[in-house]
């Protein structure tokens, strides 16, 4: 088999699903007008698939902070965190996140993906064991592979299955990492964290919670699921990203284990890639301040999320298990999902199309993500488009897992 032959299957699937050559996965956003509006092709669209949970990408405070940082410090750091890429702003952001999470060690990475690789891929080694939820994000799977540890997958949100696996490990739990997410990115459901913590307390192990989709979304202060579930002090490592509720790009690790500071010397994704640009750090700091100062953003977000979930449910759509800012609609075949996605775009609504294996359980889905910046009228517009497209689903192709 020649080098490129491995793409043959992809090429034929792509040709079959997108015969006109226009793939939803190559969407080009020509202009962005606001956190909720943009132009795609010739069409003005409502953005309902962005992870822009608090709608802060155009917040004047963030834009101004980014401007000032560019003028003062230039466009890029041109170096790694370990060399010339740690400015005052990077350390200040770490201190502010430390204050927010009440953690004495916070490390900023260039993306959330790299934070995951930097923690899990470095801390766990070939002698160690990782227990991960089956629905964990690809960044976590990749981090596990990088670690070389024994990787054991447990059924999604199934604490009894996790417990059985911890039992099987017997005395080996002191070198075991358990990895879960705050809100799962595809179906929008959250981990049963209090129960997971109880099991960890009983059997041992260290717990990582990736709060990528729950930072600014859950908890009284927006710290995430660990706060909402009241178990923040028993979570060993919090992973997070600046690319969703904070409206920028970058990631972090927060921990109260003082040893995690050694990751600055041991973690290759910290050492061998350039640090976030000064403007990115500055807008992130401003966004974190807004997240803390304006709990009403979280209230708006949840009002919108609940409105969308309830209305789509009333239309008879099969959704993820609970209302959340990620609202996933489960569809049938790949062809049906693609047609549905295209129909939404023709109605002026952009959402995310997710096909297996990226979607769990063999489902195909369109994934809406709600923003605090959506107006109730915009949520109604989204629902109206879903109502108009119900005919697509009446074809004999009911939602069911594909091929497994």
């Amino acid at each position, binding site marked *: 088999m020649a080098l490129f032959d491995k793409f043959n299957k992809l090429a034929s699937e792509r040709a079959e699903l997108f015969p006109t050559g226009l793939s939803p996965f190559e969407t080009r956003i020509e202009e962005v007008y606001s956190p909720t509006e943009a132009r795609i092709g010739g069409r003005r669209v409502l953005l309902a698939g962005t992870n822009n949970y608090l709608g802060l990408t155009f917040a004047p405070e963030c834009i101004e902070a980014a401007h000032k940082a560019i003028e003062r410090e230039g466009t890029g750091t041109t170096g790694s965190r370990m060399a010339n890429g740690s400015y005052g702003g990077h350390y200040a952001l770490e201190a502010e996140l430390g204050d927010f999470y009440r953690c004495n060690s916070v490390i900023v990475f260039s993306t959330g993906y790299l934070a995951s690789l930097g923690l899990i891929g470095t801390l766990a080694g070939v002698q160690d064991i990782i227990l991960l939820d089956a629905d964990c994000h690809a960044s976590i799977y990749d981090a596990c592979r990088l670690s070389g540890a024994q990787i054991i997958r447990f059924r999604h949100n199934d604490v009894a*299955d996790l417990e059985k696996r911890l039992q099987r490990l017997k005395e080996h739990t002191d070198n075991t990492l358990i990895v879960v997410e705050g809100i799962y990115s595809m179906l929008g459901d959250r981990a049963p964290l209090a129960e997971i913590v109880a099991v960890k307390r009983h059997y041992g192990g260290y717990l990582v919670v990736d709060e990528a989709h729950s930072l600014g979304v859950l908890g009284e202060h927006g710290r995430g699921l660990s706060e909402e579930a009241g178990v923040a002090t028993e979570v060993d490592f919090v992973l997070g990203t600046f690319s969703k509720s904070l409206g920028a790009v970058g990631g972090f690790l927060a921990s109260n284990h003082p040893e995690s500071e050694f990751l600055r010397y041991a973690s290759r994704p910290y050492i061998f890639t350039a640090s976030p640009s000064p403007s990115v750090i500055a807008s992130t700091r401003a966004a974190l301040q807004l997240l803390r100062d304006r709990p009403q953003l979280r209230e708006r977000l949840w009002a919108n999320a609940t409105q969308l979930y309830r209305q789509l449910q009333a239309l008879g759509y099969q959704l993820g298990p609970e209302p959340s800012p990620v609202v996933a609609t489960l569809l049938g075949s790949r062809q049906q999902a693609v047609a549905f996605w295209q129909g939404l775009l023709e109605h002026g609504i952009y959402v995310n199309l997710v096909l297996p294996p990226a979607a769990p359980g*063999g489902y195909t889905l369109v994934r809406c993500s709600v923003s605090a910046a959506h107006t109730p009228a915009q949520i109604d517009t989204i629902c109206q488009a879903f109502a108009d497209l119900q005919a697509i689903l009446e074809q004999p192709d009911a939602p069911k897992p594909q091929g497994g």
Partner: protein
Amino acid sequence: MAEYRQILDRLYTHLRPMAPQGMTLEEDTDLISEFGLDSVNVMDLLLEVEEDFDISVPLNLLADIRTPKDLACAITRLLEAG
């Protein structure tokens, strides 16, 4: 290897419901290129098999598991290791 045959038969009971139309399953059927599973199907199959045999199979082993026979051998070894 007396147990091997029984393990294989139990694996077949998990695999058969996943079989594409008209596909027969042999010890040496390639689960991905012939049987048509994708990498996530294989991991999900593993969850069922793990429950059935009351073991955890590290995903690291999947790199060397292409056929029912490979999987049955891996399970045999894990059961023996206790």
